[in-house]
């Protein structure tokens, strides 16, 4: 197998992700590359993303766990901390990354970000502006996008 020299830590993490998945989250490694994960996160209840199924990709770089995993939304989403390309603005994916964090903690943090958008630290200026000037309307757009793009396939 191509992944024979996979570090024990990645194998352990993968096993645990598969055997005891976190609620609302599923992550499974790709067949041909054990460092590449297909991820699904359910929109948290009482958030504008409720009822949506969001696909993400997660990749563990060579330096993992010294360097943070690379994560990106594949499903279109209207969120002030996520840009058009699906890139996520989350401190633990950048300077607050610690090698003691895991794939599971990263995905739980992303799920939490869906429940609590933070327009003060935006990745998407326009959406953040919208969020700050008229939150009710922005939430409506987010719901609309969830219906349009994340209604499960």
């Amino acid at each position: 197998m191509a992944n024979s020299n996979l570090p024990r830590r990645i194998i352990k993490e993968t096993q645990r992700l598969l055997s005891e998945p976190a609620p609302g989250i599923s992550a499974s490694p790709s067949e041909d590359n054990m460092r590449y994960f297909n991820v699904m996160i359910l929109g948290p209840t009482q958030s504008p993303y409720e009822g949506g199924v969001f696909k993400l990709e997660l990749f563990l770089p060579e330096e993992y766990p010294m360097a943070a995993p690379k994560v990106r939304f594949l499903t279109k989403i209207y969120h002030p901390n996520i840009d058009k390309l699906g890139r996520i603005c989350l401190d633990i994916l950048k300077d607050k990354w610690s090698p003691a964090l895991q794939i599971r903690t990263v995905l739980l943090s992303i799920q939490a970000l869906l429940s609590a958008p933070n327009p003060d630290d935006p990745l998407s200026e326009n959406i953040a502006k919208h969020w700050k000037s008229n939150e009710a309307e922005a939430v409506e757009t987010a719901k609309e996008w969830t219906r349009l793009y994340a209604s499960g396939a």
Partner: protein
Amino acid sequence: MEDYAASSDDEYRYSDPEDSVDAFDNDDNDYQLVSSKGPSTQVITKESLLGAQKEDLRKVMDMLSVREQHARTLLIFHRWDVEKLFAVYVDRGKHFLFSEAGVTVDEHRDSNSSAAPLTIMCEICIEDVPSDETTKMDCGHCFCNGCWTEHFIVKINEGQSKRIRCMAHKCYSICDEAVVITLLSKKHPDMAEKYERFLLESYIEDNKRVKWCPSAPHCGNAIRVEDDELFEVECSCGLQFCFSCLSEAHSPCSCLMWELWAKKCRDESETVNWITVHTKPCPKCHKPVEKNGGCNLVSCICGQAFCWLCGGATGREHTLSSIAAHSCGRYEEQEKTAERAKRDLYRYMHYHNRYKAHTDSFKLESKLKETIQKKIAVSEEKHSTLRDYSWVNNGLSRLFRSRRVLSYSYAFAFYMFGDELFKEEMTEAQREIKQNLFEDQQQQLEANVEKLSKILEERFQTFKYDKVMEIRMQIINLTTIIDKLCQKMYECIENDLLGSLHIGVHNIAPYKSKGIDKASELSVHNIAL
């Protein structure tokens, strides 16, 4: 930022392009009078960098009784400002000082005393590792040496050498540099070296009192200052520069004035301006056409006639005041903007011409250095009783220094009395009074500088003894007068001009009668290591 030519090659210097902004290279070095005041600036070379750093480390280590690596972490956090660090210590206490900077001292180190298990599961790699292959940091977090090492390498490559945090989540403790170096040295001595160099250079890069000399190619030195007043300094490589903006020494211009002026001189737009003021494009072939004669009908060499006021193509039939079958509407507005542009351009040219005249003279006078030494040699042969020629050398260095001052004083005046920076600061009448006051001083200085320049060119080596003594007196007098006049002009600038400003602080490096301070070599052997 300015480019600095390597200033060791005289030939290269004299061939500076005509309009070079850095017209003054540091040619007056050889004539520097010995500074009487103790030096407040020091050169830090590659060799003395370690020593310079140790001085500050020692202060902190003594004061707080901590080990060197902790002193360094504290100092890096406080950007090598020992005074500030001590102030935090006094105001907020040791605990705050340490935790703010991520220093944890020895709280968990002694755990070896209790019987350690043979293997430990490292939470990063999830491997069971013999306990002697793990390392516990001061914060108490313990991981295997392999994980630590990889972590250090990633952080160093990310450029985070100066503050490598512990691997545990939400632990803000800074890794002990001794541990970092020990672990890296085992398999990655190159990384250990890189890490140590970063720590060493932090003393320059994170320190507001130390700056790299801006020479290019770089001389390898840094300059350290004792206080943060604005001043100009000379590195041991010979480069003179403004410590604040790192461009060439530019007093009495403030850094902002100099930045604007240097940019203005470089910009081609001024030439473009001249063309827009004096020519108009032909409506047919678009070549610039100059106005000739009084009437507003101009003709291009292509044969097209057009109206000077609006630029529109016309026939050729016209009187002095009107062109047949052409009604021109935009006259007044166009005329006004053209007038203003012309006035601004002339104003700039006025100051720039004088600025440049002095930089050009400076270049010419630089050659006097050699000829004057020859003259002295001849004269020494001729008049055996005349041994002391310091009056010539002093006169010459006074000339160089005052030329610099004069030259930059025109760039200063351009902004001081122009609209760009201080339009709101004074009324038209106030400005006129101030300008007269300043120009009075400037002209007196200018007249005396020219006089001195002329006398220094005289062939005194051919003169009889009495005549030499006469010229000697003149040069000594002028040297003193010019020094006084420079001083007076600076007083005027500081007190009457800049001192009365309400908005915008414009600091200028003070006048140094004896020339720009040379930074002294830092003597490392005086420092207890």
